[in-house]
C-alpha cells in the first residue's frame, strides 16, 4: 500500500499528490487516517450519531471535490477539520427546534467563571473508575457545555488546533476563542471535580 514510506512514516504529501491525480487508493488512505478524528469531532459538535455520520461523509466528499483548491499552506488535517466544522455547524443551525445558544451570541457574562467546587483530585482516578467509566464521564461533561463553548473546547483541547486555527475554523475572533475556552475549561473542571476529587478531602489539606 501507498500508506507509508519505507521508514514507516505516514507520507501525507505523497498521498495528496497521488489523490490529486485521481488515485483512489491514495485518497482512501487519507480517509482512513483521519476518519476517526473527524467522526469524533462531528459527534461532539452535533451530539447526534446520524448527523455525525452525514458530516463524516460530506467532509470527505467535499475534500475530494475541492482537493485542487487545497494549497498545502495549512495542514491537510486542519483543512478537513474546517470542512467538518462547517458541516457540523450547519446541522446545528438547521434544527428548527434548537433552543441552544446561537454560536454568535455574546457570551461574556462573567457568570460562567464562577467557581463553586474547590477540591484536590485523587492522584489515581483509574483506581476508582474503569477506563470506560472515565470515558463516559469525560464525554458527558463535554456534551453538557453550550455549543459555543463546546466547539471551541473540542477544537482547542481535544483536536489540539491552535487558537488561530480555531478562530479561522469557527469564523470568530481570537479573543472570543480565548474567552470561550477559559469558560469551557472552568466548567469542565467543575464537573470533573465532582467525580475525581479526593474523598474526604478539601482545600485545607494544603494549609
Amino acid at each position, binding site marked *: 500500500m501507498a500508506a507509508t514510506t519505507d521508514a514507516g512514516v505516514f507520507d501525507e504529501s505523497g498521498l495528496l499528490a497521488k489523490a490529486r491525480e485521481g488515485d483512489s487508493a491514495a*485518497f482512501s488512505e487519507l480517509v482512513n487516517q483521519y*476518519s*476517526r478524528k473527524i467522526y469524533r469531532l462531528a459527534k461532539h459538535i452535533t451530539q447526534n450519531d446520524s448527523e455525525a455520520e452525514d458530516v463524516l461523509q460530506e467532509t470527505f466528499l467535499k475534500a475530494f*471535490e475541492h482537493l485542487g483548491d487545497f494549497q498545502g499552506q495549512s495542514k491537510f488535517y486542519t483543512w478537513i477539520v474546517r470542512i467538518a466544522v462547517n458541516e457540523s455547524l450547519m446541522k446545528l443551525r438547521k434544527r428548527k427546534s434548537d433552543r441552544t445558544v446561537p454560536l454568535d451570541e455574546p457570551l461574556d457574562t462573567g457568570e460562567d467563571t464562577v467557581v463553586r467546587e474547590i477540591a484536590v483530585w485523587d492522584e489515581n482516578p483509574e483506581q476508582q473508575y474503569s477506563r470506560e467509566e472515565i470515558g463516559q464521564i469525560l464525554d458527558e461533561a463535554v456534551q453538557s457545555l453550550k455549543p459555543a463553548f463546546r466547539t471551541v473546547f473540542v477544537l482547542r483541547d*481535544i483536536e489540539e488546533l491552535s487558537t488561530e486555527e480555531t478562530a479561522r475554523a469557527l469564523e470568530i475572533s481570537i479573543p472570543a476563542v480565548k474567552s470561550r475556552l477559559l469558560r469551557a475549561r*472552568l466548567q*469542565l473542571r467543575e464537573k470533573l471535580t465532582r467525580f475525581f476529587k479526593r474523598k474526604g478531602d478539601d482545600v485545607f489539606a494544603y494549609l
Partner: protein
Amino acid sequence: MTSLLTCKEFMQELSDYLDATVDAELRRKLEVHISECPNCFVILDTTKKTIEVYKGVQPQPIPPEVYSRLMKAVEKKLAATHKPG
C-alpha cells in the same frame, strides 16, 4: 513594586497562563498569587488536569457499518469523477 492580583483577575488569566501565552511580568504576578492563595492553586492544578485528561483520549474506532457506508460513498464519488479512457 507591583500590585497583587485579585482571585478574579487570576481567573481571567488562568487559561492563557496554562497555554504559556502570558508575558513574563504577568506570569510572575500569577505565580506570586498562587503561592499565596491555596484556592487558586487548586483551581489552577485541577484545570491543568482537566486539559491533560482530554488531551490523552484517543478517538474510538468508527462503528463498522458507519465506516463501510463512508467508504462506499467515497468509492462512488471517486468512480463518478474518474475520467474514462
